[in-house]
């Protein structure tokens, strides 16, 4: 009897919640039903496409006969999409490289670990992973940067670009607000020039025009040029994001630091920047996410990032016609990275909240 009663009251609570939240009045009922209808119409076919009608084992011919997703295509091509043209026998190197970067990122999540040591760790493993990929040292086979591809390339380009452009952005933002005319004008000029040009054109310039200006005999690696181009591009955006934070700091903070005798660098490093950078965490992460995805533009100068290898996989004559699978795979990969970035930023904001802006 007792249990029955409890059961009944629980049902009552659920019904009340449904009424309050989903079927409050005719309009809300209508919208609820419409949304449920939409969800059903998307979810069920997707589920069917991916799990019921799909084919996991088989060749392209067999795949073309089924209605659903050709998972066999992904099974066959995942290795190529992720690692691309890197020599087959050496694939452990890019895989290890990816794990190094992921481990570094995960390790750096904890704020208590931030400091000079962590910076050193990043530098050490940055150099280490570079030589791991490149080889020609410690008896590793030399691999041209032209052959670096897929996920490790995307991850390296994006991580290095974002970590290097952040401090550069801070310098540019401070420069733009500097009292020294020359510094200010140079900063403004740089930021406005770079922001006024699309990333694609900067990449093109780095790959096509820049070598023309170099003296004969000097060749700068294409990957390096692209990396620098991306860093230059992101720095300008970071600078503006950070400048927004600087402007939000009340004048009193500057005056209080001044009145205590702190010099310019102490004032900025100890008082102004910690507050300003905290305020702009959301737009900073926003820029980072957008730049992570924009690294896919390097494929137009024939660097083989993840997007490039995915396209390569699609155009394999044996496996024509499975681009939907490839694109969805890409979307899932990109989403995982970007979503975790966003989630981390929200966590950071919470941790840094001291109750008063």
């Amino acid at each position, binding site marked *: 009897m007792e249990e029955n009663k409890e059961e009944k009251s629980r049902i009552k609570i659920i019904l009340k919640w449904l009424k309050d939240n989903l079927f409050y009045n005719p309009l809300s009922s209508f919208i609820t039903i419409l949304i449920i209808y939409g969800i059903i119409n998307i979810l069920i076919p997707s589920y069917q496409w991916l799990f019921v009608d799909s084919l996991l084992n088989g060749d392209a011919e067999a795949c073309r006969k089924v209605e659903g997703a050709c998972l066999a295509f992904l099974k066959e091509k995942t290795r190529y999409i992720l690692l691309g043209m890197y020599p087959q026998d050496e694939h452990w190197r890019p895989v290890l490289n990816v794990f190094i970067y992921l481990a570094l990122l995960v390790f750096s999540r904890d704020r208590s670990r931030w400091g000079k040591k962590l910076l050193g760790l990043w530098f050490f493993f940055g150099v280490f992973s570079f030589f791991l990929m490149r080889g020609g040292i410690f008896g590793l086979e030399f691999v041209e940067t032209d052959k670096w591809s897929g996920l490790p390339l995307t991850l390296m380009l994006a991580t290095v670009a974002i970590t290097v452009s952040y401090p550069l952005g801070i310098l540019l933002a401070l420069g733009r607000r500097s009292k020294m005319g020359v510094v200010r004008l140079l900063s403004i000029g740089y930021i406005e020039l770079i922001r006024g040009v699309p990333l694609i054109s900067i990449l093109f310039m780095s790959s096509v025009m820049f070598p023309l200006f170099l003296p004969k005999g000097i060749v700068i690696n294409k990957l390096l040029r692209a990396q620098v181009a991306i860093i230059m591009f992101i720095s300008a955006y970071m600078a503006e994001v950070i400048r927004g934070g600087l402007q939000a700091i009340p004048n009193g903070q500057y*005056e209080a630091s001044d*009145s205590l*005798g*702190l010099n310019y660098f102490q004032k900025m490093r100890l008082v102004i920047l910690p507050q300003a950078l905290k305020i702009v965490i959301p737009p900073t992460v926003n820029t980072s996410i957008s730049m992570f995805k924009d690294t896919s533009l390097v494929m137009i100068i024939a660097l083989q990032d993840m997007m490039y290898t995915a396209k390569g996989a699609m155009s394999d004559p044996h496996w024509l016609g499975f681009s939907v699978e490839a694109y969805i795979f890409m979307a899932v990969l990109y989403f995982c990275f970007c979503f975790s970035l966003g989630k981390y930023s929200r966590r950071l904001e919470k941790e840094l909240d001291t109750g008063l802006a």
Partner: protein
Amino acid sequence: MTNPLVISVKSLDKWFGKFHVLQNINLEVTQGEKIVICGPSGSGKSTLVRCLNRLEVHQKGTIVVNGIELKDNVKNVDSVRADVGMVFQHFNLFPHLTILENLTLAPIWVRKMNRKDAEEIAYHYLERVQIQEQAMKFPGQLSGGQQQRVAIARSLCMKPKIMLFDEPTSALDPEMVKEVLEVMVDLAKEGMTMIVVTHEMGFAKEVADRVIFMDYGKIIEENEPGPFFSDPQHDRTKLFLSQILI
């Protein structure tokens, strides 16, 4: 007077754009002297005090503080500022740092003190302003009166020779004014050189050696508090006093 001169302002002029905010100001302060500056808003009293540690830049005349003339030389300015404490109307504590960190920041970075000594001094002054139990909190968790007392302690940690107060109680709720004024009175009794912009005439009567009345960027009247309040000479002073002393 036998005490040495610590502040000397000679024919000071300052403009904000075309607005002549300070006009031919002359002021001398000796060590240990307490000076209260009052006057209607816009009279230039805050600007004058802010010129004394070069938060504002003057255009004409000379300002010498602790024997150093305030000019463009950044090193000189920083060393004057390290020896001149300032308390603001809106406290201006650093919201991202704990109370303790607020207090130790400048001693560690400007005075190059080690952390342990700096914290010892910080606790000493926190005790004096009676908020030692709040040391680990953030400014946002304190009341206005507590924040202002922390701000005073923060300045004192630098062992300043002069303290400037720019309307320290104007942004406080009435019931919190007293706790801040008490700290200031204590400080005055210990012989600190103080220049205080305030409308708290009770405070002026109790501790000031001299009261200065300013209007339209000029020093209108200057006297010891006794005669200043009982027998003001100038019409504008009389009007001002009648308005605020009700």
